[in-house]
């Protein structure tokens, strides 16, 4: 099967600084790929580029066979920003139904997505009265309802309690099993083990493009946090001082 996302030679500058340095990678379809890296490493910038809202300096990004940001991709690619991007002065249900109407999905699809993220009981509450974790899930629901083929999630599990976090990861894998391609960013290395594939990003450079098992084997440690550190040291040793 063809790659869901192909990136070659991607360079992005933000505010006179180079934020992404010549990235190249492929995201396979129907899997959960983790985009892991510390805060400020360029994860959000990369996701913005994939969804076509980031000005890029050079490089090529192909999503589902089309240039990133093409009009025809807008109903096929779902994007959930890092900060919950839902309307605080609307209820969860009203938010979901609004976004559903933009995709031509009915209110049934909207209500189902709200229930799927575990907000069925809070559907009638204003978003501004929710906890930050609930806001994040409301934001996620507004992307799920469009049944996108590619789902780009920017730190969706930040601030969630551990039980919810596990449930959310189960849902990501269920979506992938049904054929959705997911790219999920996180700065928490202990989430890396939950991904089928890993992209390790640091200071705008791709350190590793691998699977958790291959990364563990290569670095000789079971701890992915430690593995990340070893990869960083390897690269620093390679660079001339």
């Amino acid at each position: 099967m063809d790659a869901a996302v192909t990136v070659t030679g991607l360079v992005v500058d933000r505010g006179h600084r180079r934020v992404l340095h010549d990235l190249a990678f492929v995201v396979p379809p129907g899997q959960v790929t983790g985009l892991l890296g510390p805060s400020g490493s360029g994860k959000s910038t990369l996701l913005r580029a994939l969804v076509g809202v980031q000005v890029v300096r050079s490089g090529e990004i192909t999503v589902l066979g089309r240039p990133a940001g093409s009009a025809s991709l807008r109903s096929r690619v779902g994007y959930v920003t890092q900060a919950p991007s839902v309307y605080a002065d609307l209820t969860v249900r009203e938010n979901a139904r609004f976004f559903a109407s933009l995709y031509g999905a009915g209110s049934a699809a909207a209500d189902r997505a709200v229930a799927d993220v575990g907000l069925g009981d809070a559907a009638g509450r204003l978003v501004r009265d929710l906890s930050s974790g609930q806001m994040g899930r409301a934001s996620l629901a507004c992307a799920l309802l469009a049944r996108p083929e590619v789902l780009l999630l920017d730190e969706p599990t930040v601030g969630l309690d551990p039980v919810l976090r596990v449930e959310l990861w189960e849902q990501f894998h269920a979506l992938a099993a049904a054929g959705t391609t997911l790219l999920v960013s996180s700065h928490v290395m202990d989430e890396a083990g939950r991904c089928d594939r890993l992209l390790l990003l640091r200071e705008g450079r791709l350190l590793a493009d691998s699977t958790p098992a291959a990364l563990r084997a290569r670095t000789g440690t079971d701890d992915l946090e430690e593995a990340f550190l070893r990869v960083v040291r390897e690269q620093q040793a390679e660079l001339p001082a």
Partner: protein
Amino acid sequence: MTAAPAVVRPGGHSHAAPGATTLAVTGRVLRQLRHDPRTIALLLVVPSLLLGLMDALWTEQPQVFDRVGLVMLAIFPFVVMFLVTSIAMLRERTSGTLERLLTTPLPRPALLLGYGAGFGLAAALQAAVTTAVGFGLLGLETAGPVGWVVVIAMVDAVLGVALGLLCSAFARSEFQAVQFMPVVVLPQVFLCGLLVPRELMAGWLQAISDVLPLTYAVDALQEVGSHPAATGRMAVDLAVVAGAALLALVLAAATLRRRTS
């Protein structure tokens, strides 16, 4: 999320009909207003209270109130809708919802038209209330039909919405957005012929007044004030205001970039 989620295969939906997305935005804007009853109350009541204050101010000179009060019916919705819209659009920008909207199938003109229709409707209600109070309770009088006053106030409100949408593109914060009010709105109020009749202005001021759209809204109202039936000049005035609103919307769409740095 206790039960395993019912995962649906990806594959999207049939596309939303053109126009449906505009209506969706309008519905959303009005729903947001509905959750904010205090704003609705302020929108509907404040202009009438201010009109009452002016009536009291000119008790001894009712003909001055007839002239100024009438013009105020164009200025209130213009100013209020400009402010409300620019803040609403700025919030959309800073909360990340705009970035998200730009990744959905919603066309940019549909977003702006949806806003225009939503706040335009709110403005129509405001104009109807203010006009009813002005003519019913405060004894405001015009030679022409009151219905035209409401129509002019509405078109003028849509102009305020369109300019608000345009200006919000140049504001990075709420503080900046409210500063655009004196910059964009006050010169139009000063030069529209309310404070000094346009014939008495210096030539260069008249030239500026000629290119400011509020001038035409005020002129249209003055036509209704002094003529028993709709005049050709009033129709031209209205067309100019509507054209300016459309131009501002087109410019707003052009400044609304999908890709940002």
